[in-house]
């Protein structure tokens, strides 16, 4: 029997790691296929696996979805109902900065390598006349390290995926303050099938949509903190990709 490879966008919430393994076990049993889950530590490693055509099923970041659909022949399957990708720019609670426009040239940014969060946050800095040419970027491996940069005064602003900001411990979050939050609504992660799994795409979509009505499936959803999967049509994804396209640098 053929083994398919499944991976999750490296910006997954660390507390959902076991959830993804549970999901994979459930999916293998339900569609009766061998699927190997590989979680990568960073975007670079996952991009390499994508470039080398090693992946057949991906829960992808909207940024990577563009490449997967337009260049690698992936088709969208489903997305979780309760999650759109929004970004937050936060400051130390004691910072004198209360608006984006109050930020100056030379602003020190702390960010992970999460590409869509980085992009959305850089866009939110534009009204202050800031861009990569007149800011200083510290890249960190995790959002907790970004938060620590703010707490220690090593960065003026930090870039966060909203969900991970909300998941920071109260102890950390009480000393931070969101300066601005994106309200884009239409950008989200989604599950995509690669060419080798294309023949199973409709079957996977059907079992995912039915998950919420089944007690086992419901438990699996809970371990990922998803309410349910929604169907995603090709054109909807093309629209999201067009939108991402308008946002990426000229």
């Amino acid at each position: 029997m053929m083994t398919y490879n499944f991976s999750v966008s490296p910006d997954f919430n660390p507390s959902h790691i076991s959830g993804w393994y549970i999901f994979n076990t459930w999916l293998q049993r339900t569609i009766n296929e061998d699927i190997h889950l590989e979680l990568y530590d960073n975007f670079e490693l996952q991009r390499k696996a994508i470039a080398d055509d090693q992946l057949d099923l991906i829960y992808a970041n909207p940024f990577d979805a563009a490449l997967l659909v337009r260049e690698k022949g992936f088709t969208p399957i489903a997305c979780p109902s309760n999650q759109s990708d929004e970004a937050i720019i936060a400051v130390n609670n004691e910072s004198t900065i209360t608006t984006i426009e109050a930020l100056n040239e030379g602003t020190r940014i702390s960010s992970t390598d999460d590409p869509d969060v980085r992009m959305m946050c850089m866009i939110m800095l534009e009204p202050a006349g800031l861009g990569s040419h007149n800011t200083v970027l510290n890249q960190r491996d995790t959002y907790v390290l970004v938060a620590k940069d703010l707490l220690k005064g090593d960065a003026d602003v930090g870039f966060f995926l909203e969900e991970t900001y909300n998941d920071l411990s109260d102890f950390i979050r009480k000393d931070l303050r969101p300066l601005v939050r994106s309200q884009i609504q239409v950008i989200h992660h989604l599950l995509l099938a690669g060419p080798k799994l294309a023949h199973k795409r409709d079957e996977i979509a059907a079992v995912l949509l039915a998950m919420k009505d089944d007690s086992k499936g419901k438990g699996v959803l809970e371990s990922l903190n998803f309410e349910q999967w929604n169907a995603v049509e090709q054109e909807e994804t093309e629209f999201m990709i067009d939108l991402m396209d308008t946002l990426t640098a000229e």
Partner: protein
Amino acid sequence: MQDMKPDNIVGEHREQTLSFHDGTQRKVFTTETETPIPDGRLIVSRTDLKGMITHVNRSFIDMSAYQEEELIGEPHNILRHPDMPSAAFKDLWDTVQGGKKWHGYVKNLRNDGGYYWVYATVIPNVRGGKIIGYTSVRRKPSRKKVLEAEALYKTLS
């Protein structure tokens, strides 16, 4: 397109007649009230090949001060402000019809006579190698860029 209605205008206004590229005209009323785009928002719309609006998001509706029903099916020049030079839009159309991405600073007219500045990107929607429509996403520009665009457009219109 319908002329603007004086009843919708908020505050002291000026009356002007816009001429569009297709020879049609519209009477518009403008005020000096600027509404900045709230931080973190993106204003999204899609059009068909002729520039008729097919989709708008919530931020688009809020910023334009129209109702959704008043926008869908209308030409996108419903937002055209008399301070915008037609050369900017010719460049927009030439670029996207050529399959490329267009960027620019645009002053848009609200249904209440006020205006809002955006940094706009327009791209062709390509499906199966064919352009089937256009998408535009607009965001809040820096004040400096707005002042530069304002000065430039005065020399063009």
